[in-house]
Protein backbone atom coordinates (compact mmCIF):
# COMPACT_ATOMS: atom_id res chain seq x y z
CA UNK A 1 0.00 0.00 0.00
CA UNK A 2 1.37 3.42 -0.91
CA UNK A 3 1.32 6.48 1.33
CA UNK A 4 -1.55 8.95 1.39
CA UNK A 5 0.56 11.61 -0.32
CA UNK A 6 0.28 9.89 -3.66
CA UNK A 7 -2.09 11.21 -6.26
CA UNK A 8 -4.59 8.37 -6.12
CA UNK A 9 -4.24 7.80 -2.40
CA UNK A 10 -3.11 4.19 -2.70
CA UNK A 11 -5.85 3.16 -5.11
CA UNK A 12 -5.14 1.48 -8.44
CA UNK A 13 -6.30 3.50 -11.45
CA UNK A 14 -6.49 2.42 -15.08
CA UNK A 15 -5.02 5.14 -17.27
CA UNK A 16 -5.81 5.63 -20.96
CA UNK A 17 -3.37 6.30 -23.81
CA UNK A 18 -4.23 9.97 -24.33
CA UNK A 19 -3.24 10.85 -20.78
CA UNK A 20 0.10 9.05 -21.13
CA UNK A 21 0.73 10.82 -24.46
CA UNK A 22 -0.15 14.26 -23.10
CA UNK A 23 2.08 13.99 -20.03
CA UNK A 24 4.91 12.64 -22.18
CA UNK A 25 4.53 15.48 -24.68
CA UNK A 26 4.77 17.97 -21.80
CA UNK A 27 7.88 16.17 -20.52
CA UNK A 28 5.92 15.39 -17.34
CA UNK A 29 5.37 11.64 -17.62
CA UNK A 30 8.13 10.91 -15.08
CA UNK A 31 6.48 13.37 -12.70
CA UNK A 32 3.04 11.80 -13.11
CA UNK A 33 4.45 8.32 -12.52
CA UNK A 34 6.27 9.62 -9.46
CA UNK A 35 3.09 11.23 -8.08
CA UNK A 36 1.27 7.92 -8.48
CA UNK A 37 3.81 5.41 -7.24
CA UNK A 38 2.63 1.98 -8.44
CA UNK A 39 -0.95 3.20 -8.71
CA UNK A 40 -1.09 3.43 -12.50
CA UNK A 41 -2.45 0.40 -14.33
CA UNK A 42 -2.15 0.20 -18.11
CA UNK A 43 -3.98 -2.40 -20.11
CA UNK A 44 -1.74 -4.15 -22.63
CA UNK A 45 -3.35 -2.44 -25.65
CA UNK A 46 -2.48 1.00 -24.25
CA UNK A 47 1.20 0.21 -24.68
CA UNK A 48 0.82 0.03 -28.45
CA UNK A 49 -1.52 3.04 -28.60
CA UNK A 50 0.77 5.26 -26.55
CA UNK A 51 3.98 4.63 -28.47
CA UNK A 52 4.74 8.19 -29.48
CA UNK A 53 3.99 11.75 -28.48
CA UNK A 54 5.11 15.04 -29.97
CA UNK A 55 8.19 14.70 -27.76
CA UNK A 56 9.23 11.39 -29.30
CA UNK A 57 9.02 7.70 -28.46
CA UNK A 58 7.33 6.60 -25.23
CA UNK A 59 8.96 3.66 -23.53
CA UNK A 60 6.21 2.33 -21.29
CA UNK A 61 7.93 -1.07 -21.19
CA UNK A 62 10.80 0.29 -19.13
CA UNK A 63 8.42 1.79 -16.56
CA UNK A 64 6.69 -1.59 -16.37
CA UNK A 65 9.97 -3.50 -16.04
CA UNK A 66 11.03 -1.16 -13.24
CA UNK A 67 7.75 -1.79 -11.42
CA UNK A 68 6.74 1.86 -11.62
CA UNK A 69 3.51 1.13 -13.42
CA UNK A 70 1.48 -2.05 -13.61
CA UNK A 71 0.57 -3.77 -16.86
CA UNK A 72 -2.53 -5.93 -17.02
CA UNK A 73 -4.41 -7.62 -19.81
CA UNK A 74 -8.09 -8.33 -20.35
CA UNK A 75 -8.69 -11.95 -19.44
CA UNK A 76 -11.47 -14.18 -18.25
CA UNK A 77 -15.10 -14.28 -19.31
CA UNK A 78 -16.33 -11.30 -17.27
CA UNK A 79 -13.69 -8.90 -18.55
CA UNK A 80 -13.92 -10.19 -22.11
CA UNK A 81 -17.70 -9.88 -22.17
CA UNK A 82 -17.47 -6.30 -20.91
CA UNK A 83 -14.80 -5.56 -23.50
CA UNK A 84 -16.92 -6.95 -26.34
CA UNK A 85 -19.96 -5.14 -24.99
CA UNK A 86 -18.28 -1.74 -25.11
CA UNK A 87 -16.71 -2.42 -28.46
CA UNK A 88 -19.85 -3.52 -30.26
CA UNK A 89 -22.74 -2.05 -28.32
CA UNK A 90 -23.96 1.25 -29.66
CA UNK A 91 -25.65 2.30 -26.42
CA UNK A 92 -22.92 4.83 -25.57
CA UNK A 93 -23.88 6.80 -28.67
CA UNK A 94 -20.19 7.12 -29.52
CA UNK A 95 -17.99 4.48 -31.14
CA UNK A 96 -15.04 3.86 -28.87
CA UNK A 97 -11.72 2.19 -29.63
CA UNK A 98 -10.37 -1.13 -28.37
CA UNK A 99 -8.00 0.57 -25.87
CA UNK A 100 -10.86 2.54 -24.33
CA UNK A 101 -13.11 -0.52 -24.17
CA UNK A 102 -10.27 -2.43 -22.50
CA UNK A 103 -9.69 0.34 -19.91
CA UNK A 104 -13.40 0.39 -19.08
CA UNK A 105 -13.69 -3.39 -18.85
CA UNK A 106 -10.62 -3.69 -16.65
CA UNK A 107 -11.54 -0.85 -14.30
CA UNK A 108 -15.15 -1.99 -13.89
CA UNK A 109 -14.39 -5.66 -13.35
CA UNK A 110 -11.44 -5.17 -11.02
CA UNK A 111 -12.79 -2.26 -9.02
CA UNK A 112 -10.04 0.12 -10.13
CA UNK A 113 -10.40 3.84 -10.72
CA UNK A 114 -10.28 5.32 -14.20
CA UNK A 115 -8.28 8.20 -15.65
CA UNK A 116 -9.40 8.93 -19.18
CA UNK A 117 -9.59 11.96 -21.44
CA UNK A 118 -12.72 10.82 -23.27
CA UNK A 119 -15.83 12.14 -21.56
CA UNK A 120 -18.09 9.39 -22.93
CA UNK A 121 -15.86 6.74 -21.34
CA UNK A 122 -15.77 8.54 -18.01
CA UNK A 123 -19.53 9.06 -18.00
CA UNK A 124 -20.11 5.36 -18.52
CA UNK A 125 -17.62 4.51 -15.77
CA UNK A 126 -19.29 6.95 -13.34
CA UNK A 127 -22.64 5.37 -14.13
CA UNK A 128 -21.35 1.85 -13.50
CA UNK A 129 -18.99 2.60 -10.58
CA UNK A 130 -20.27 5.75 -8.87
CA UNK A 131 -17.93 5.66 -5.87
CA UNK A 132 -14.69 5.11 -7.73
CA UNK A 133 -11.97 7.56 -8.73
CA UNK A 134 -12.81 8.93 -12.14
CA UNK A 135 -10.65 11.67 -13.54
CA UNK A 136 -8.88 13.15 -16.55
CA UNK A 137 -5.47 14.72 -17.21
CA UNK A 138 -6.76 18.12 -16.10
CA UNK A 139 -7.99 16.58 -12.85
CA UNK A 140 -4.67 14.82 -12.24
CA UNK A 141 -2.69 18.07 -12.44
CA UNK A 142 -5.26 19.95 -10.34
CA UNK A 143 -5.15 17.25 -7.67
CA UNK A 144 -1.33 17.26 -7.71
CA UNK A 145 -1.41 20.99 -7.03
CA UNK A 146 -4.06 20.61 -4.34
CA UNK A 147 -2.07 18.08 -2.34
CA UNK A 148 1.23 19.89 -2.84
CA UNK A 149 2.94 17.52 -5.25
CA UNK A 150 3.51 20.43 -7.62
CA UNK A 151 3.72 24.20 -7.18
CA UNK A 152 0.96 26.50 -8.41
CA UNK A 153 3.04 28.04 -11.19
CA UNK A 154 4.22 24.68 -12.51
CA UNK A 155 0.67 23.35 -12.34
CA UNK A 156 -0.65 26.32 -14.29
CA UNK A 157 2.03 25.73 -16.91
CA UNK A 158 0.98 22.10 -17.21
CA UNK A 159 -2.73 22.92 -17.38
CA UNK A 160 -2.01 25.46 -20.10
CA UNK A 161 0.17 22.89 -21.88
CA UNK A 162 -2.61 20.31 -21.84
CA UNK A 163 -4.49 22.50 -24.31
CA UNK A 164 -1.57 22.36 -26.72
CA UNK A 165 -0.91 18.63 -26.90
Amino acid at each position, binding site marked *: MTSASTIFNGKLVTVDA*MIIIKFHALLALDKFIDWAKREIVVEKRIKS*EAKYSKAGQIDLASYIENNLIIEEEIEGKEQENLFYHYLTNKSLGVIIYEGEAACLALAISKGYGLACDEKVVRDEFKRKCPGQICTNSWGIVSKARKIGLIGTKAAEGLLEGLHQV
Partner: protein
Amino acid sequence: MSEEMNSRSIVIGERLKKAREALGYTQEKVAEKLNIGRPRYSDIENGKRDIPLKELYSFCEFFGRPLEYFLKEKLAVDSGFKVLFRKTEGDQEVAKVITEFETLCEKMYTLEEIADIKIRPSISKDYAYEKDRLLFWGKFYAKQERQRLNLGQASIRNLDQILEEKCALKIFYLPIPAERGIFGMFTYDEEMGGCVLINTNANFGKQLFSLAHEYAHFIFHKERLGIVSSEKEKDTSDESLADNFAGDFLMPEESVNDIFNIRIKNRKDLTAEDTIYFAEYFGVSFQAMVYRLNNLKLLSNDMKEKLISETWVNTVRRSMGISEPESRPKFPSLYFHLCLKAYQQNKITTSKLAEFLELPLYQAMELGRKIKRSVQDDECLDNF
Protein backbone atom coordinates in the same frame (compact mmCIF):
# COMPACT_ATOMS: atom_id res chain seq x y z
CA MET B 1 -22.26 -20.87 -23.12
CA SER B 2 -24.62 -17.92 -22.68
CA GLU B 3 -26.82 -16.95 -25.63
CA GLU B 4 -24.70 -13.85 -26.29
CA MET B 5 -21.45 -15.82 -26.21
CA ASN B 6 -22.99 -18.49 -28.35
CA SER B 7 -24.03 -16.09 -31.10
CA ARG B 8 -20.62 -14.38 -30.89
CA SER B 9 -18.89 -17.73 -31.29
CA ILE B 10 -20.98 -18.49 -34.36
CA VAL B 11 -20.15 -15.14 -35.98
CA ILE B 12 -16.43 -15.52 -35.15
CA GLY B 13 -16.48 -19.05 -36.58
CA GLU B 14 -18.13 -17.94 -39.82
CA ARG B 15 -15.63 -15.10 -40.26
CA LEU B 16 -12.68 -17.37 -39.56
CA LYS B 17 -13.89 -19.69 -42.27
CA LYS B 18 -14.36 -16.81 -44.69
CA ALA B 19 -10.93 -15.33 -43.91
CA ARG B 20 -9.27 -18.75 -44.22
CA GLU B 21 -10.93 -19.55 -47.53
CA ALA B 22 -10.05 -16.10 -48.90
CA LEU B 23 -6.38 -16.92 -48.39
CA GLY B 24 -6.86 -20.42 -49.78
CA TYR B 25 -5.79 -22.16 -46.57
CA THR B 26 -7.03 -25.48 -45.23
CA GLN B 27 -8.08 -25.89 -41.60
CA GLU B 28 -4.99 -28.07 -41.10
CA LYS B 29 -2.70 -25.32 -42.33
CA VAL B 30 -4.18 -22.64 -40.05
CA ALA B 31 -4.15 -25.00 -37.06
CA GLU B 32 -0.52 -25.87 -37.76
CA LYS B 33 0.59 -22.26 -38.29
CA LEU B 34 -1.10 -21.11 -35.09
CA ASN B 35 -0.02 -24.16 -33.20
CA ILE B 36 -3.48 -25.33 -32.16
CA GLY B 37 -4.99 -28.75 -32.64
CA ARG B 38 -6.98 -29.26 -35.85
CA PRO B 39 -10.12 -30.58 -34.00
CA ARG B 40 -10.03 -27.52 -31.74
CA TYR B 41 -9.72 -25.15 -34.69
CA SER B 42 -12.54 -26.97 -36.44
CA ASP B 43 -14.75 -26.54 -33.36
CA ILE B 44 -13.96 -22.81 -33.27
CA GLU B 45 -14.79 -22.41 -36.93
CA ASN B 46 -18.05 -24.28 -36.41
CA GLY B 47 -18.99 -21.93 -33.57
CA LYS B 48 -18.93 -24.76 -31.05
CA ARG B 49 -16.20 -23.33 -28.90
CA ASP B 50 -15.68 -19.89 -27.37
CA ILE B 51 -12.15 -18.55 -27.75
CA PRO B 52 -10.19 -16.28 -25.43
CA LEU B 53 -9.64 -12.70 -26.64
CA LYS B 54 -5.89 -13.29 -26.73
CA GLU B 55 -6.40 -16.09 -29.23
CA LEU B 56 -8.81 -14.01 -31.29
CA TYR B 57 -6.10 -11.35 -31.59
CA SER B 58 -3.69 -13.97 -32.89
CA PHE B 59 -6.27 -14.84 -35.58
CA CYS B 60 -6.56 -11.13 -36.43
CA GLU B 61 -2.83 -10.93 -36.92
CA PHE B 62 -2.62 -14.15 -38.89
CA PHE B 63 -5.43 -13.26 -41.30
CA GLY B 64 -4.57 -9.53 -41.49
CA ARG B 65 -8.07 -8.58 -40.34
CA PRO B 66 -9.16 -6.05 -37.71
CA LEU B 67 -10.93 -7.34 -34.60
CA GLU B 68 -14.12 -5.70 -35.84
CA TYR B 69 -14.22 -8.10 -38.80
CA PHE B 70 -14.73 -11.03 -36.44
CA LEU B 71 -17.32 -9.28 -34.28
CA LYS B 72 -19.58 -7.40 -36.68
CA GLU B 73 -22.89 -9.17 -37.09
CA LYS B 74 -23.20 -8.32 -40.77
CA LEU B 75 -20.54 -7.43 -43.31
CA ALA B 76 -21.41 -4.73 -45.81
CA VAL B 77 -19.23 -6.01 -48.63
CA ASP B 78 -19.07 -9.67 -49.36
CA SER B 79 -20.06 -11.18 -52.70
CA GLY B 80 -17.81 -9.01 -54.88
CA PHE B 81 -14.78 -9.81 -52.75
CA LYS B 82 -15.48 -13.51 -52.92
CA VAL B 83 -15.09 -13.19 -56.69
CA LEU B 84 -11.83 -11.25 -56.35
CA PHE B 85 -10.37 -13.82 -53.95
CA ARG B 86 -11.42 -16.65 -56.25
CA LYS B 87 -9.83 -14.99 -59.27
CA THR B 88 -6.49 -14.63 -57.50
CA GLU B 89 -6.60 -17.93 -55.64
CA GLY B 90 -3.25 -19.23 -54.46
CA ASP B 91 -1.52 -15.84 -54.61
CA GLN B 92 -1.02 -14.92 -50.95
CA GLU B 93 0.51 -11.52 -51.65
CA VAL B 94 -2.42 -10.40 -53.79
CA ALA B 95 -4.91 -11.94 -51.33
CA LYS B 96 -3.38 -9.73 -48.62
CA VAL B 97 -3.98 -6.64 -50.76
CA ILE B 98 -7.57 -7.69 -51.45
CA THR B 99 -8.02 -8.23 -47.71
CA GLU B 100 -6.88 -4.67 -47.07
CA PHE B 101 -9.12 -3.38 -49.86
CA GLU B 102 -12.08 -5.21 -48.27
CA THR B 103 -11.22 -3.82 -44.82
CA LEU B 104 -11.11 -0.28 -46.20
CA CYS B 105 -14.49 -0.71 -47.90
CA GLU B 106 -15.99 -2.06 -44.66
CA LYS B 107 -14.57 0.91 -42.76
CA MET B 108 -16.00 3.30 -45.33
CA TYR B 109 -19.41 1.68 -44.95
CA THR B 110 -19.17 1.93 -41.15
CA LEU B 111 -18.27 5.61 -41.46
CA GLU B 112 -21.24 6.23 -43.73
CA GLU B 113 -23.46 4.62 -41.12
CA ILE B 114 -21.94 6.58 -38.24
CA ALA B 115 -22.08 9.94 -40.03
CA ASP B 116 -25.49 9.03 -41.43
CA ILE B 117 -24.45 9.91 -44.96
CA LYS B 118 -25.00 7.34 -47.64
CA ILE B 119 -24.69 8.65 -51.14
CA ARG B 120 -26.12 6.11 -53.55
CA PRO B 121 -27.03 7.64 -56.90
CA SER B 122 -29.40 5.57 -58.98
CA ILE B 123 -27.35 2.93 -60.74
CA SER B 124 -28.20 2.09 -64.30
CA LYS B 125 -28.12 -1.44 -65.63
CA ASP B 126 -24.96 -2.61 -67.35
CA TYR B 127 -24.65 -0.92 -70.74
CA ALA B 128 -25.22 -3.26 -73.67
CA TYR B 129 -22.61 -3.84 -76.38
CA GLU B 130 -21.65 -6.34 -79.04
CA LYS B 131 -18.45 -8.28 -78.55
CA ASP B 132 -17.47 -8.04 -82.21
CA ARG B 133 -17.57 -4.20 -82.19
CA LEU B 134 -15.58 -3.35 -79.10
CA LEU B 135 -13.78 -0.36 -80.63
CA PHE B 136 -17.05 1.18 -81.70
CA TRP B 137 -18.82 0.65 -78.37
CA GLY B 138 -15.83 1.85 -76.36
CA LYS B 139 -15.82 5.10 -78.30
CA PHE B 140 -19.61 5.41 -78.30
CA TYR B 141 -19.99 5.08 -74.54
CA ALA B 142 -16.89 7.18 -73.80
CA LYS B 143 -18.50 10.05 -75.65
CA GLN B 144 -21.85 9.41 -73.97
CA GLU B 145 -20.30 9.31 -70.48
CA ARG B 146 -18.36 12.50 -71.09
CA GLN B 147 -21.64 14.17 -71.97
CA ARG B 148 -23.56 12.59 -69.10
CA LEU B 149 -20.93 13.73 -66.60
CA ASN B 150 -20.64 17.19 -68.20
CA LEU B 151 -16.96 16.82 -68.85
CA GLY B 152 -16.73 18.51 -72.25
CA GLN B 153 -13.50 17.78 -74.09
CA ALA B 154 -11.00 18.86 -71.44
CA SER B 155 -8.39 16.61 -69.84
CA ILE B 156 -9.65 14.99 -66.65
CA ARG B 157 -6.77 14.55 -64.25
CA ASN B 158 -9.12 14.78 -61.29
CA LEU B 159 -11.16 11.81 -62.51
CA ASP B 160 -11.16 10.25 -59.04
CA GLN B 161 -12.95 13.26 -57.55
CA ILE B 162 -15.43 13.31 -60.44
CA LEU B 163 -16.28 9.62 -60.09
CA GLU B 164 -16.54 9.86 -56.30
CA GLU B 165 -18.86 12.83 -56.56
CA LYS B 166 -21.01 11.87 -59.52
CA CYS B 167 -21.05 8.07 -59.40
CA ALA B 168 -20.35 7.49 -55.66
CA LEU B 169 -17.47 5.18 -56.61
CA LYS B 170 -15.21 4.38 -53.69
CA ILE B 171 -11.66 4.57 -54.97
CA PHE B 172 -8.74 3.27 -52.95
CA TYR B 173 -5.05 3.26 -53.82
CA LEU B 174 -2.81 0.42 -52.63
CA PRO B 175 0.41 -1.14 -53.89
CA ILE B 176 0.17 -4.54 -55.57
CA PRO B 177 3.48 -6.29 -56.35
CA ALA B 178 4.45 -5.09 -59.84
CA GLU B 179 5.37 -8.56 -61.13
CA ARG B 180 1.72 -9.68 -60.80
CA GLY B 181 0.77 -7.42 -63.73
CA ILE B 182 -2.39 -6.25 -61.94
CA PHE B 183 -3.45 -2.68 -62.69
CA GLY B 184 -6.64 -2.45 -60.69
CA MET B 185 -9.71 -4.21 -59.35
CA PHE B 186 -13.40 -3.54 -59.28
CA THR B 187 -16.22 -4.87 -57.12
CA TYR B 188 -19.89 -4.12 -57.08
CA ASP B 189 -22.38 -4.70 -54.33
CA GLU B 190 -25.94 -3.41 -54.22
CA GLU B 191 -25.56 -2.20 -50.65
CA MET B 192 -22.14 -0.65 -51.12
CA GLY B 193 -22.12 0.44 -54.78
CA GLY B 194 -18.96 0.33 -56.87
CA CYS B 195 -15.54 0.02 -55.25
CA VAL B 196 -12.27 0.41 -57.12
CA LEU B 197 -8.69 -0.40 -56.20
CA ILE B 198 -5.83 1.14 -58.18
CA ASN B 199 -2.29 -0.24 -58.03
CA THR B 200 0.06 2.50 -56.85
CA ASN B 201 3.10 0.63 -58.09
CA ALA B 202 2.31 2.05 -61.53
CA ASN B 203 3.11 5.65 -62.50
CA PHE B 204 0.43 8.33 -62.11
CA GLY B 205 -0.47 8.36 -65.78
CA LYS B 206 -1.02 4.62 -65.74
CA GLN B 207 -3.08 4.96 -62.54
CA LEU B 208 -5.37 7.46 -64.26
CA PHE B 209 -5.80 5.12 -67.21
CA SER B 210 -6.53 2.23 -64.82
CA LEU B 211 -9.16 4.34 -63.09
CA ALA B 212 -10.94 5.07 -66.39
CA HIS B 213 -10.60 1.35 -67.18
CA GLU B 214 -12.19 0.33 -63.86
CA TYR B 215 -14.91 2.90 -64.43
CA ALA B 216 -15.65 1.07 -67.69
CA HIS B 217 -16.17 -2.10 -65.65
CA PHE B 218 -18.57 -0.15 -63.45
CA ILE B 219 -20.76 0.84 -66.40
CA PHE B 220 -20.44 -2.41 -68.36
CA HIS B 221 -19.76 -5.24 -65.92
CA LYS B 222 -21.48 -4.72 -62.57
CA GLU B 223 -23.17 -8.08 -62.94
CA ARG B 224 -19.76 -9.79 -62.79
CA LEU B 225 -19.53 -8.49 -59.15
CA GLY B 226 -15.74 -8.59 -59.16
CA ILE B 227 -13.05 -8.03 -61.79
CA VAL B 228 -9.26 -8.14 -61.58
CA SER B 229 -7.72 -6.11 -64.41
CA SER B 230 -4.41 -7.72 -65.24
CA GLU B 231 -1.89 -8.25 -68.00
CA LYS B 232 -2.99 -11.90 -68.08
CA GLU B 233 -6.59 -10.95 -68.94
CA LYS B 234 -5.86 -8.08 -71.30
CA ASP B 235 -6.97 -9.87 -74.48
CA THR B 236 -10.39 -10.84 -73.14
CA SER B 237 -13.35 -8.90 -74.52
CA ASP B 238 -14.14 -7.36 -71.11
CA GLU B 239 -10.64 -5.96 -70.80
CA SER B 240 -10.40 -4.84 -74.43
CA LEU B 241 -13.65 -2.96 -74.15
CA ALA B 242 -12.52 -1.32 -70.89
CA ASP B 243 -9.21 -0.31 -72.53
CA ASN B 244 -10.97 1.10 -75.59
CA PHE B 245 -13.36 3.03 -73.39
CA ALA B 246 -10.54 4.39 -71.19
CA GLY B 247 -8.52 5.55 -74.21
CA ASP B 248 -11.48 7.38 -75.75
CA PHE B 249 -12.71 8.70 -72.43
CA LEU B 250 -9.39 10.20 -71.33
CA MET B 251 -8.17 11.23 -74.79
CA PRO B 252 -11.20 12.10 -76.96
CA GLU B 253 -10.44 11.97 -80.66
CA GLU B 254 -11.35 15.62 -81.27
CA SER B 255 -9.12 16.85 -78.45
CA VAL B 256 -6.17 14.75 -79.53
CA ASN B 257 -6.56 15.95 -83.11
CA ASP B 258 -6.78 19.57 -81.97
CA ILE B 259 -3.71 19.52 -79.81
CA PHE B 260 -1.85 17.44 -82.38
CA ASN B 261 -2.54 19.96 -85.13
CA ILE B 262 -1.56 22.90 -82.96
CA ARG B 263 1.76 21.36 -81.86
CA ILE B 264 2.85 19.46 -84.93
CA LYS B 265 1.48 21.85 -87.60
CA ASN B 266 3.44 21.22 -90.79
CA ARG B 267 6.14 19.07 -89.24
CA LYS B 268 6.42 15.56 -90.58
CA ASP B 269 7.87 13.75 -87.59
CA LEU B 270 6.32 13.35 -84.23
CA THR B 271 9.05 13.06 -81.60
CA ALA B 272 9.16 11.44 -78.17
CA GLU B 273 9.15 14.93 -76.66
CA ASP B 274 5.87 15.69 -78.46
CA THR B 275 4.37 12.48 -77.09
CA ILE B 276 5.54 13.33 -73.58
CA TYR B 277 3.90 16.74 -73.99
CA PHE B 278 0.59 15.18 -75.12
CA ALA B 279 0.71 12.58 -72.34
CA GLU B 280 1.26 15.32 -69.79
CA TYR B 281 -1.61 17.34 -71.29
CA PHE B 282 -4.06 14.45 -70.86
CA GLY B 283 -2.49 13.20 -67.62
CA VAL B 284 -1.91 9.72 -69.01
CA SER B 285 1.24 7.60 -69.29
CA PHE B 286 3.65 7.92 -72.21
CA GLN B 287 2.74 4.41 -73.29
CA ALA B 288 -1.03 5.09 -73.25
CA MET B 289 -0.46 8.22 -75.34
CA VAL B 290 1.63 6.32 -77.89
CA TYR B 291 -1.10 3.70 -78.30
CA ARG B 292 -3.79 6.35 -78.60
CA LEU B 293 -1.90 8.32 -81.26
CA ASN B 294 -1.31 5.10 -83.17
CA ASN B 295 -4.92 4.10 -82.78
CA LEU B 296 -5.98 7.46 -84.27
CA LYS B 297 -3.49 6.96 -87.09
CA LEU B 298 -1.46 9.98 -86.04
CA LEU B 299 1.54 7.76 -85.41
CA SER B 300 2.84 5.02 -87.69
CA ASN B 301 3.27 1.46 -86.44
CA ASP B 302 7.06 1.71 -86.89
CA MET B 303 7.20 4.88 -84.85
CA LYS B 304 4.96 3.35 -82.22
CA GLU B 305 7.36 0.42 -81.77
CA LYS B 306 10.32 2.79 -81.68
CA LEU B 307 8.77 5.06 -79.06
CA ILE B 308 7.55 2.22 -76.86
CA SER B 309 11.07 0.84 -76.69
CA GLU B 310 12.59 4.18 -75.64
CA THR B 311 14.20 3.93 -72.23
CA TRP B 312 15.02 7.59 -71.68
CA VAL B 313 11.47 8.87 -71.46
CA ASN B 314 11.56 9.55 -67.73
CA THR B 315 14.84 11.46 -68.01
CA VAL B 316 13.33 13.65 -70.73
CA ARG B 317 10.16 14.13 -68.68
CA ARG B 318 12.23 15.38 -65.77
CA SER B 319 14.23 17.70 -68.04
CA MET B 320 10.90 19.09 -69.30
CA GLY B 321 10.01 19.89 -65.71
CA ILE B 322 7.43 17.11 -65.43
CA SER B 323 7.72 15.12 -62.27
CA GLU B 324 5.63 12.45 -60.59
CA PRO B 325 3.77 13.59 -57.47
CA GLU B 326 5.36 11.91 -54.47
CA SER B 327 2.38 9.95 -53.30
CA ARG B 328 -1.37 9.98 -53.02
CA PRO B 329 -3.56 9.04 -50.07
CA LYS B 330 -4.95 5.53 -50.07
CA PHE B 331 -8.43 6.76 -49.08
CA PRO B 332 -11.11 8.51 -51.15
CA SER B 333 -11.63 12.16 -50.18
CA LEU B 334 -15.13 11.28 -48.95
CA TYR B 335 -13.53 8.86 -46.47
CA PHE B 336 -11.59 11.75 -44.84
CA HIS B 337 -14.70 13.88 -44.89
CA LEU B 338 -16.76 11.18 -43.14
CA CYS B 339 -14.05 10.62 -40.50
CA LEU B 340 -13.85 14.30 -39.67
CA LYS B 341 -17.61 14.73 -39.69
CA ALA B 342 -18.15 11.76 -37.38
CA TYR B 343 -15.47 13.16 -35.07
CA GLN B 344 -16.87 16.68 -35.08
CA GLN B 345 -20.31 15.28 -34.28
CA ASN B 346 -18.79 13.41 -31.31
CA LYS B 347 -19.78 10.07 -32.79
CA ILE B 348 -16.28 8.61 -32.56
CA THR B 349 -13.51 9.11 -30.03
CA THR B 350 -10.05 10.47 -30.86
CA SER B 351 -8.58 6.95 -30.65
CA LYS B 352 -11.20 5.70 -33.09
CA LEU B 353 -10.35 8.60 -35.42
CA ALA B 354 -6.72 7.48 -35.26
CA GLU B 355 -7.76 3.95 -36.16
CA PHE B 356 -9.89 5.05 -39.12
CA LEU B 357 -7.19 7.35 -40.50
CA GLU B 358 -4.40 4.88 -39.66
CA LEU B 359 -2.56 7.59 -37.75
CA PRO B 360 -0.56 7.33 -34.53
CA LEU B 361 -2.81 8.50 -31.70
CA TYR B 362 -0.75 11.63 -30.96
CA GLN B 363 -1.21 12.79 -34.56
CA ALA B 364 -4.96 12.19 -34.39
CA MET B 365 -4.98 14.23 -31.15
CA GLU B 366 -3.23 17.06 -33.00
CA LEU B 367 -5.74 16.84 -35.85
CA GLY B 368 -8.59 16.71 -33.34
CA ARG B 369 -7.32 19.82 -31.62
CA LYS B 370 -7.26 21.68 -34.92
CA ILE B 371 -10.79 20.76 -35.92
CA LYS B 372 -12.40 20.90 -32.50
CA ARG B 373 -10.30 23.63 -30.84
CA SER B 374 -9.30 21.21 -28.08
CA VAL B 375 -9.30 17.49 -27.34
CA GLN B 376 -8.84 18.38 -23.69
CA ASP B 377 -12.06 18.55 -21.75
CA ASP B 378 -11.56 21.06 -18.98
CA GLU B 379 -13.89 19.29 -16.59
CA CYS B 380 -12.08 19.60 -13.26
CA LEU B 381 -12.16 16.15 -11.69
CA ASP B 382 -9.82 16.54 -8.72
CA ASN B 383 -12.29 15.54 -6.04
CA PHE B 384 -10.84 12.09 -5.45
